[in-house]
C-alpha cells in the first residue's frame, strides 16, 4: 500500500515501525497510553464504555497550556476523555460496532479542508471503520478489504496535502485477533504499525532491515519534545532518537539526541522520585540502582557538554563517547520502564484476606443454615443479629461519615455473621441433647454414621475438584471441557451409587429365587436412558464453544458467527431453517408440557398469552433473523425498510416478553376450575374447540384436585351434598408459572445471541429437563419418603450445568470474548445512557446463569409433579372415597405452608453455597496467585466473571423464589375466591 511505497521510495523521509501496545488493548486504555505515556491499570477496562475525563497530566493538556491549537476529528471517546481541550473538533458516535462508515466518512469530509486551512498545531484524526469491520466481519472479509483500500487512498492523498514542516504519524492503537476482536494481550492484539513521514528529510540513513519495535508510550515524550512542550508528568516512555537526528553532521545529531534523552531521563527520574514517596510498591533496591544509573549518566553528560564547548575532544573519540552515553540513558529509561511494568499493581493483603474470610464464613453460614432449615424458630433469631449488624453499621457510618463504604459494608456483614454463629453455637448443646434423645441416632454406629455422611460426600467431592481446578491456569483455560467432564462423572456416580445400593434392581438374593432371575426395576431403564441422553447433550454442547487465544489449534465454533457471514446461500438457508426449527421446537415443547399438565385450559390472560403470544414472539424472532442475515448491499432501495425492521422486530420481542412477564406476575394462576356442584354427573373435560381425541387425552391426563372438597365439606355441615370443584392444572401451577417465565426469558436471551446459538438454547432446555427427570427418578428409586429435601447431587449438577452452558452459549471468561453486538439488538442508533447496553451485554454474557438460577426452584417442585404413578391415571372421579388417593402433586406443598417456605429457603441456601464455594475458590486463586505470570490473563478475568455471575445468579435466584411465593399468594387468593360460592 501507500505506506510501503513511501517508505521504500523515500527512505530518508518515511519509516515504518512496529508499534507495541501494553495490554489491555481496549480503545480507551490505548488512548490514555498514547496521551499520558503511562501504563494502564487493569480495572480501568471496566470503564471502557463509560469513559471518564483523564485527570493525569497528558500531552494534550500540555499543548493547550502552551497555547497550541489541537484539532480533533473522529471517535467521540476522546470527547469524554478530554472535555473542552480541542480548539476545533468533529466527533462522531463510536459505540455502534455495526456501523462501519459514519466515523470515517465524517472525518474524510473535514480532513483535507482542515489540513489545508492550516490553523492548527496538532491534528488528530481517529478512524474507526477498520476496527468496527474487524468486530463485525473479522479480518478476512471482503468488507475489510474495502475498508483498507479506503484508508490507503486516504493516506496517499493526505500526503499530497502536507506542508513542508508537517510530520505525519499513522499509528494503530492496537491489533486484532483472528476473529477481529481485541482487548487481550496476545501477540496479534498488541502489535500495530507506526508510520512516520515528512516532506523534509528526517533520517540520516536508510531504514534497518527489520522494522524497529517501539513501545506505544514512547510516542508521548517524542511528540512533546518535537512540539516543544514539557513531557507529561507521569510518562515513562523513551524518546525515539531517530526523529531527533536533524540534517547536520553526526556529532550534532548525536548531541541533539542526547539533549532529548537528558530531558526525558530527568522527567522520568522526577516522576519516579515523587511516585516512590507516595507509594511503597516499587522495590527499594531497584529504585536505588536506577537513581545511581541516572546520576552517573547525568554527570557524564554534563562533563561531556563542557568538553565539547571547550573543543577538547577529537571528533571520532567524541562520537564514541556520545554513543556510549546515549546507551546509558537508554539503559536507564528501559530499566525504569521495566520496574514500573513489573510492579505496577498495588495489593491490600489485609483486605484480601478479610474478604476471603468473609466469603468463606458466608459459605459456612449457607451450609449450616441449609442443614438447619427445618428448625424454624432459628430464623427469627437470625434476623435479630442481621438487624443488630445493620444498626451498628448505621451508627458507625453516622459517627464517622468519612469511612470507606466498602469497609462499612464488610463490617456489617461480619457483625451479622458473628451474631448468627454465636446464636448457632449457643443453641448447639440443646440440639445435641435433643438429638441424643432420639433412639435411631443414638444407636447408629460409627460405620453407619460414616456411611450416612458418605451420601453427600461424593457430590461435594466433585465440587471440591471443580474448585481445586481453578487453582491451575491450565485447568481454567480448559474449563469448558473440565465442567462437562465433571458433570458427566457426577451423573455416572449418581446412577452408579443407586445401583451399588441395590436400588436399581429388586432384591433377589432371597433363596427361593434362582440367581438368574434377578430382575431390574421398571424405572431403571428410563434412568439409564436419561443418563445416556445427558451424556449426549453434554457432548453436543461442546460444539458451541468459543476459543481462548491460549489454546493453539482451536477453531471457534462456526455457530458463533452471525448468519450473514455465511457465503453460500444454500448453507445460509439451511442454517436459517434449522434455527427456526429449533425455535418452533422450543415453543412446541413448552406448550406440549403445559397441555400435558392441564395448564393450557383456562381462559386467563396468561394462558391466552401462552397460546398466542409465544408463537408470535417466535415469529418476530424468526423475522428478525431473516432481516439480519441478509447481505447489506443486495437490498438497495429497501435499505430504509430494513433498518426500520432491524429496530422494530427486536423491540416487538422485548415488548412481548415484558408483557408476558408482567402477566405472570399479575395473574400467575393457570388453573381451569369447573364448578360441578350444579351438575352432579361425572366431570367431563370441557375443552372447547378441540378434536375429540384431544379431549379424551385431556380427560385422561389432566389432574384433578379434590382436596378442595374436603375443606368445603367440613364447612358445609353434615356432608348433605357432595360439592365438587374440579381444577385442572392445579397440581402443576407453580412449575407452570416458572416454565412460562423461563421460556419468556429464553426468548429474550435467544434474541441477544447470534442466530445459530438457538440450537444451543434448545439443548440447554433439553438438558435442564433431563437433569430434572434424572433427579426425580433417582429420588423415587432411592425411596426418599420425603421429597421435601433436594439432595446435593441435584443442586451441584444444576450449578455445573450453569457453568457448562456459560461456555456453550459461546462465552469465555476473557474480555475479548464478550459479545458486544448484543448491545445493539433493537437499538440502531447510539444509546443515550450506558445502562441499557450494559444490561443487554450482561444478559447475553450470563444467559445460562439467569436461566438456571430462575429455574432453580424447579428442583424442588419437579418431584411433586412426577408423583403420579401411571396406575392412578385412569381412575375416574366418581367415588368420593377414592379422593384420598388422588395425587396432590404440588398442592402437598400447600398442606404444610411453613414447611414449604423452609424448604424453599433451604434449596436457595444450598444453591448459594455451591455458587459461593466456586466464588471462594476464584477469590483465593486471585489472591494467592496475584504475582503469577498468568494473573492478568487468566485468573483475574476469571475472578471478575465468576463474581459477576454470582451476583447475577443470586439476584435471579431471589427472583425465582419470589415468583414461587407470588404464585403461592395468588393461589391463596384463588381459594378464597372459590370458597364463598
Amino acid at each position, binding site marked *: 500500500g501507500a505506506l510501503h511505497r513511501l517508505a521504500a521510495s523515500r527512505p530518508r523521509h518515511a519509516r515504518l515501525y512496529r508499534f507495541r501496545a501494553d495490554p489491555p488493548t481496549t480503545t480507551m486504555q490505548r488512548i490514555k497510553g498514547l496521551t499520558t505515556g503511562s501504563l494502564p491499570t487493569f480495572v480501568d477496562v471496566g470503564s471502557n464504555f463509560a469513559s471518564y475525563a483523564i485527570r493525569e497530566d497528558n500531552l494534550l493538556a500540555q499543548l493547550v497550556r502552551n497555547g497550541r491549537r489541537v484539532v480533533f476529528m473522529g471517535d467521540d471517546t476522546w470527547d469524554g476523555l478530554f472535555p473542552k481541550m480541542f480548539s476545533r473538533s468533529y466527533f462522531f458516535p463510536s459505540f455502534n460496532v455495526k456501523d462501519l462508515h459514519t466515523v470515517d466518512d465524517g472525518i474524510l469530509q473535514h480532513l483535507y479542508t482542515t489540513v489545508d486551512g492550516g490553523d492548527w498545531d496538532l491534528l488528530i484524526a481517529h478512524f474507526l471503520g477498520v476496527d468496527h469491520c474487524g468486530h463485525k466481519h473479522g479480518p478476512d472479509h471482503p468488507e475489510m478489504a474495502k475498508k483498507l483500500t479506503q484508508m490507503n487512498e486516504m493516506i496517499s492523498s493526505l500526503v499530497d496535502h502536507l506542508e513542508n514542516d508537517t510530520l505525519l504519524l499513522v499509528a494503530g492503537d492496537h491489533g486484532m485477533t483472528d476473529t477481529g476482536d481485541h482487548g487481550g494481550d496476545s501477540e496479534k492484539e498488541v502489535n500495530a504499525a507506526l508510520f512516520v513521514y515528512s516532506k523534509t528529510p528526517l533520517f540520516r540513513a536508510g531504514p534497518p532491515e527489520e522494522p524497529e519495535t517501539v513501545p506505544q508510550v514512547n510516542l508521548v515524550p517524542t511528540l512533546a519534545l518535537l512540539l516543544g512542550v514539557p513531557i507529561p508528568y507521569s510518562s515513562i516512555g523513551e524518546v525515539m532518537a531517530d526523529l531527533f537526528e536533524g540534517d547536520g553532521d553526526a556529532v550534532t545529531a548525536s548531541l541533539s539526541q542526547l539533549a532529548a534523552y537528558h530531558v526525558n531521563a530527568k522527567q522520568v527520574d522526577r516522576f519516579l522520585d515523587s511516585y516512590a514517596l507516595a507509594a511503597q510498591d516499587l522495590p527499594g533496591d531497584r529504585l536505588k540502582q536506577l537513581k545511581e544509573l541516572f546520576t552517573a549518566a547525568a554527570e557524564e553528560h554534563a562533563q561531556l557538554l563542557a568538553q565539547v564547548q571547550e573543543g577538547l575532544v577529537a571528533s571520532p573519540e567524541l562520537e564514541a563517547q556520545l554513543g556510549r552515553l546515549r546507551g546509558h540513558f537508554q539503559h536507564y529509561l528501559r530499566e525504569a520502564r521495566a520496574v514500573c511494568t513489573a510492579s505496577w499493581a498495588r495489593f491490600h493483603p489485609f483486605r484480601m484476606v478479610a474478604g476471603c474470610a468473609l466469603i468463606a464464613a458466608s459459605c459456612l453460614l449457607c451450609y449450616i443454615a441449609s442443614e438447619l432449615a427445618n428448625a424454624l424458630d432459628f430464623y427469627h433469631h437470625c434476623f435479630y443479629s442481621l438487624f443488630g449488624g445493620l444498626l451498628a453499621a448505621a451508627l458507625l457510618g453516622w459517627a464517622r461519615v468519612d469511612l470507606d463504604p466498602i469497609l462499612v459494608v464488610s463490617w456489617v456483614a461480619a457483625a451479622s455473621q458473628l451474631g448468627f454463629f454465636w446464636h448457632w453455637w449457643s443453641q448447639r448443646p440443646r440440639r445435641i441433647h435433643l438429638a441424643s434423645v432420639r433412639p435411631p441416632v443414638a444407636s447408629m454406629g460409627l460405620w453407619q454414621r460414616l456411611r450416612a455422611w458418605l451420601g453427600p460426600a461424593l457430590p461435594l467431592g466433585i465440587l471440591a475438584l471443580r474448585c481445586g481446578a481453578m487453582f*491451575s491456569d*491450565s*485447568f481454567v*483455560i*480448559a474449563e469448558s*471441557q*473440565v465442567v*462437562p*467432564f465433571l458433570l*458427566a*462423572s457426577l451423573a455416572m456416580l449418581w446412577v452408579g451409587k443407586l*445401583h*451399588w*445400593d*441395590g436400588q436399581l*434392581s429388586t432384591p433377589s*438374593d432371597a433363596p427361593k429365587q434362582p*440367581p*438368574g*432371575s*434377578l430382575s*431390574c426395576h421398571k424405572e431403571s431403564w428410563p434412568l439409564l436412558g436419561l443418563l445416556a441422553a445427558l*451424556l*449426549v447433550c*453434554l*457432548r453436543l454442547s*461442546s460444539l458451541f464453544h468459543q476459543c481462548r487465544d491460549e489454546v493453539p489449534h482451536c477453531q471457534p465454533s462456526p455457530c458463533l458467527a452471525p448468519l450473514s457471514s455465511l457465503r453460500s446461500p444454500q448453507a445460509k438457508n439451511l442454517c436459517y431453517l434449522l434455527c427456526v426449527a429449533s425455535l418452533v421446537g422450543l415453543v412446541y415443547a413448552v406448550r406440549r408440557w403445559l397441555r400435558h399438565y392441564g395448564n393450557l385450559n383456562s381462559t386467563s390472560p396468561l394462558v391466552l398469552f401462552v397460546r398466542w403470544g409465544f408463537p408470535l414472539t417466535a415469529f418476530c424472532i424468526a423475522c428478525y433473523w431473516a432481516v439480519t442475515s441478509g447481505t447489506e448491499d443486495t437490498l438497495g432501495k429497501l435499505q430504509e425498510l430494513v433498518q426500520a425492521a432491524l429496530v422494530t422486530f427486536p423491540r416487538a420481542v422485548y415488548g412481548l416478553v415484558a408483557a408476558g412477564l408482567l402477566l405472570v406476575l399479575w395473574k400467575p394462576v393457570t388453573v381451569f376450575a369447573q364448578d360441578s356442584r350444579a351438575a352432579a354427573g361425572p366431570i367431563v373435560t370441557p375443552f372447547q374447540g378441540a378434536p375429540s381425541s384431544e379431549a379424551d387425552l385431556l380427560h385422561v391426563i389432566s389432574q384433578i384436585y379434590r382436596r378442595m372438597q374436603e375443606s368445603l365439606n367440613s364447612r358445609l355441615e353434615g356432608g348433605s351434598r357432595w360439592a365438587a370443584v374440579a381444577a385442572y392444572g392445579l397440581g402443576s401451577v407453580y412449575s407452570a408459572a416458572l416454565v412460562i417465565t423461563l421460556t419468556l426469558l429464553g426468548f429474550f436471551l435467544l434474541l441477544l445471541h447470534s442466530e445459530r446459538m438457538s440450537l444451543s438454547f434448545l439443548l440447554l432446555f433439553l438438558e435442564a429437563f433431563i437433569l430434572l427427570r434424572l433427579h426425580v427418578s433417582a429420588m423415587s428409586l432411592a425411596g426418599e419418603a420425603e421429597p421435601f429435601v433436594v439432595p446435593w447431587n441435584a443442586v451441584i449438577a444444576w450449578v455445573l450445568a450453569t457453568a457448562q452452558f456459560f461456555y456453550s452459549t459461546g462465552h469465555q471468561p476473557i474480555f475479548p470474548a464478550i459479545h458486544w453486538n448484543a448491545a445493539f439488538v433493537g437499538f440502531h442508533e447510539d444509546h443515550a445512557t450506558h445502562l441499557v447496553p450494559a444490561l443487554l451485554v450482561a444478559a447475553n454474557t450470563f444467559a445460562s446463569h439467569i436461566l438456571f438460577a430462575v429455574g432453580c426452584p424447579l428442583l424442588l417442585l419437579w418431584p411433586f409433579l412426577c408423583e403420579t404413578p401411571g396406575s392412578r391415571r385412569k381412575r375416574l372421579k366418581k367415588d368420593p372415597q377414592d379422593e384420598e388417593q388422588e395425587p396432590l402433586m404440588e398442592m402437598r406443598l400447600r398442606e404444610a405452608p411453613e414447611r414449604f417456605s423452609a424448604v424453599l429457603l433451604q434449596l436457595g441456601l444450598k444453591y448459594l453455597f455451591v455458587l459461593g464455594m466456586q466464588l471462594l475458590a476464584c477469590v483465593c486463586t486471585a489472591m494467592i496467585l496475584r504475582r503469577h505470570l498468568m494473573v492478568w490473563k487468566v485468573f483475574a478475568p476469571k475472578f471478575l466473571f465468576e463474581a459477576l455471575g454470582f451476583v447475577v445468579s443470586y439476584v435471579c435466584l431471589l427472583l425465582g423464589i419470589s415468583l414461587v411465593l407470588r404464585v403461592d399468594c395468588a393461589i391463596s387468593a384463588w381459594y378464597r375466591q372459590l370458597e364463598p360460592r
Partner: protein
Amino acid sequence: MKDTEIKKLLFAHIFCVVSIILSTVVPSFFLENFSVLGTHLTWLCICSACVTTVNIFLYIIVKPNPSSKRSSFAHKISRFLKCCIYFFMSCIVFHGIIVLYGAPLIESVLETFLFAVLLSTFTTLNCLCMLGPNIQAWIRVFSKNGAMSIWDNSLQITTMCSIVGAWLGAFPIPLDWDRPWQNFCSEV
C-alpha cells in the same frame, strides 16, 4: 480352604502384574525403536493381548468358580462365542462412553478404540472369566452386598480401580505439556 484361595488369588494377580511389566519391557528386544510413549499404539495392542492371554490362561488353570454340572462341548462353544460377543460389545460401549466424555469423534479414532479395548481387557474380560457371560451375575457382584467369595471381592476392586484409574487419567490432559501420549493414559 480360604488360605489356598488367597494363595491362588495372589498368584493370579502377580501373574497379571508381571505380564503388564513384561509387555512394556520385552517388545523392545524384538521391535526396533519401541517405547511406551513413542509407539503407544503398538504398546496398547501388545499390552491388551498380553493381559488377555494371561487372563484366559489363568482361568483355565485356576478355575475360580468351578461349575458343578458338566456341560457338553456345544454348550462350551456357545459360551465362548457369547463371551466374544460380549467382549466386543463392551469395547464398543467403552468407546462410546469415552467419546461422550469428550474424546474427539473422528481424529485419533484408533487411539480411542484401542484404549477402549485395553479398558475392556481389564474389566469385562475379568468379569467374563470369573462369572461367565451372565449379566445377572455381574449386576449382583457389582452391588453393595453382592460379593459372595473372595474372588468376587477381588473382581470388584480391580474393575472399580481400572475405571477410576482411567477416569483419573483424564486429569493431566489439560496441563500444557503438549505431548502426543497425553491424550490417552494407561491405567491398572
